[in-house]
C-alpha cells in the first residue's frame, strides 16, 4: 500500500472546555474514498474543520508526507486540500462564474484556468446554464454542485465533503455520488462525511465511525456494511425491518 496522502494522529479539538474531537487518528490513501460516519454532534464537522485548518487543534497532521499543523488555511489550499463545508459557504451575491474564478484563486498558473473551467462545465452542465446567475438564486442541489466545483477549481489532491447529500432530493444525491466516484477515478482522494450511511459505505473504500468525538470503529467499507453495531446504529430501520 502506498504512503498515505493524509494522515491524522491524536487529533483533539476543543471549544472552551468542551472536547468535540478526542484523540482521533485517521489516514486517507491516494485515490481512496474514506467516509466518516456518526450521529449528529459526534464531531465529524469539527474533524474536517481541523484538518482544513479553520479550527484550532492539537495533534499531528501530515499531508503528502509533510507536516502541515502550522500551515494556514490558504497554504493548505495551495498544497492541494480543499473542503466543501456543510453550509456550502458560497459567495451568494456573486455570479456562478465568479465563484468558480475565486475557487481558482490560489492557482499559480492561470493558463490552465480555462481548461479547468471547461472540465467543471462538463462535470456540472447545470452550472454552465447558470453561469451568469447569482449563486444565491440557485436551488439546493445546484448550490452543492457549485460548492464542489468551486473546490475543484483549485486542483485539489484531497477533496473533503461535509454532508453533500444534506437536504437534497434522492435523484440529485445520486448525481452527486456519481460525480464523487468519477473524481476518485480521476485520482482525487475523497474524505466524505455523510449521514446517509448506506450510500456512503457503498461508495467508500474505508470507513470510520465517530461517536462523542472518538473513533469507535473502523475498517474497510465492505466489512462495516456487515458489522452488527453499524447496522444497529446507522442502518437502524432496515435491521429492524428485515
Amino acid at each position: 500500500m502506498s504512503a498515505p496522502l493524509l494522515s491524522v494522529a491524536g487529533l483533539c479539538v476543543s471549544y472552551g472546555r468542551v472536547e468535540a474531537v478526542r484523540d482521533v487518528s485517521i489516514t486517507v490513501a491516494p485515490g481512496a474514498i474514506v467516509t466518516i460516519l456518526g450521529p449528529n454532534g459526534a464531531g465529524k464537522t469539527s474533524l474536517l474543520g481541523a484538518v482544513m485548518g479553520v479550527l484550532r487543534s492539537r495533534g499531528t497532521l501530515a499531508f503528502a508526507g509533510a507536516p502541515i499543523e502550522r500551515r494556514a488555511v490558504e497554504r493548505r489550499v495551495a498544497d492541494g486540500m480543499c473542503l466543501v463545508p456543510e453550509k456550502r459557504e458560497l459567495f451568494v451575491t456573486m455570479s456562478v462564474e465568479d465563484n468558480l474564478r475565486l475557487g481558482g484563486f490560489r492557482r499559480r498558473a492561470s493558463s490552465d484556468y480555462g481548461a479547468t473551467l471547461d472540465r467543471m462545465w462538463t462535470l456540472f452542465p447545470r452550472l454552465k446554464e447558470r453561469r451568469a446567475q447569482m449563486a444565491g438564486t440557485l436551488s439546493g442541489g445546484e448550490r452543492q454542485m457549485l460548492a464542489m466545483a468551486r473546490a475543484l477549481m483549485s486542483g485539489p489532491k484531497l477533496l473533503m465533503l461535509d454532508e453533500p447529500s444534506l437536504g437534497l432530493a434522492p435523484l440529485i444525491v445520486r448525481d452527486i455520488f456519481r460525480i464523487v466516484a468519477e473524481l476518485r477515478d480521476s485520482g482525487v482522494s475523497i474524505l466524505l462525511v455523510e449521514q446517509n450511511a448506506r450510500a456512503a459505505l457503498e461508495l467508500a473504500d474505508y470507513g470510520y465511525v465517530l461517536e462523542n468525538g472518538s473513533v469507535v470503529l473502523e475498517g474497510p467499507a465492505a466489512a462495516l456494511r456487515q458489522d452488527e453495531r453499524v447496522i444497529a446504529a446507522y442502518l437502524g430501520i432496515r435491521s429492524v425491518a428485515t
Partner: protein
Amino acid sequence: MDLSIVLILLQDGVTNAAIYALLALALVLVFTVTRVIFVPVGEFVSFGALSLAALEAGRMPGTVWLLVILGVAAAAATLFAGRRDLTVRSVALTLAETILLPLAIAALTAFLAPHKPPQLVQVALALLIVAPMGVYTYSAVFRPIAEASVLVLLIVSVALHLALVGLGLIFFGAEGSRTEALSRASVTLGDLFVSGQAVVVLGVTAALMVGLYLFFERTLIGKALRATAVNRLGARLVGISPGFSGRVAFALAGVIGALGGILISPLTTIYYDTGFIIGLKGFVAAIIGGLVSYPLAAAAAIMVGVLESFASFWASEFKEVIVFMIIVPILLARSYGTTVLEDEE
C-alpha cells in the same frame, strides 16, 4: 432665499458630500472585509491635508516620521505573527515593504521638500507619505487581533484614533492650515458660480468611484475582497487569506482618506483634529447604507452634505444637531422589515 443662494448651497453641499462619500466607501470597504469600524480614517484626512500644507510651506511634514515608526511596528508585528513559518523570501519582502519603503519615501521627501516642487508633485508626495500608513496600521494593530469581537476592534480603533490625534498635534501644532486650490479656474453658469476646486473634487471623486467599481467588478483581487466581505469562511476555504484581504482594504482606505484630506483642504481650514468630525459624517453615511451597500452610502453622503449646507445657512448654531438628529428616523426606517429575534455574537 433666492435661486443663486440655493445653488451655492447645493454646490457647497455636494462638494463636501463627495468627500463624505469617499470616506463612507472606505469605511464600508474596511468594515465588510475586516469587521473593523475604521474610526481613524478621519486622521488620514487631517494628515493628508496638513502634510500637503507643510510641503507647500517647504517644510518636511512630521508624518514622515510617523510613517517610518508605523513601518517598524508593522514589521515587528508581521514577523512576530509569522515567526513559526519564516523564509528568507518572506522576511525580505516584509522588510522591504515596511522598512525600506518608508525610508525611501522619507529620503525622497527630505530631498524634494525644501525645493518647493510643483503642486502636483506635492500632492503626490503627500499621498505617498500618508496612504501607506493604512496598510501598516492594519499589520501592526488590527491583524494580531483579527478574530476579536466587533466591539473590541472598535475600541482599539478608537484608541488608535486618540493616539493619532495626539501625534497630529505634535506634528502640526494647534494652528489650522488651508492649502492652495487645486484649480483656480472658475465658470459662471447663469446664476451659478462654479469654482474650479469644486469641479476637481467632484471629478476626482467620480474617477475614484469608477476606478473602485472596475476594481471590484473586473479584477480577481477586487473579487477576492468582495468574496471576503460576502463570506469570510468561504473566502478562506478557496485560499484567500484574511490578512491579504485586510491589507488591500486598509491600503485602499489609506489612499482614500489621504486623498479626501488633499481634496478638502483648499475648501476649509483643517486642524489636527478636524478629521474626526469629517470622518464621523462619512461614518453616518456609511451606516445609513447599512455598512454594506456602496451606492446607498454614497447617496446618504450627498444627503448629509446638502443637509449640512442648508442647515448652516438657516440655523448655523444647530447645524450639527439637525444633521445628526435627522439620521435617527432614517436608521429606524432602515431597521424595520427584517426579523425581530436575533442572537448577537
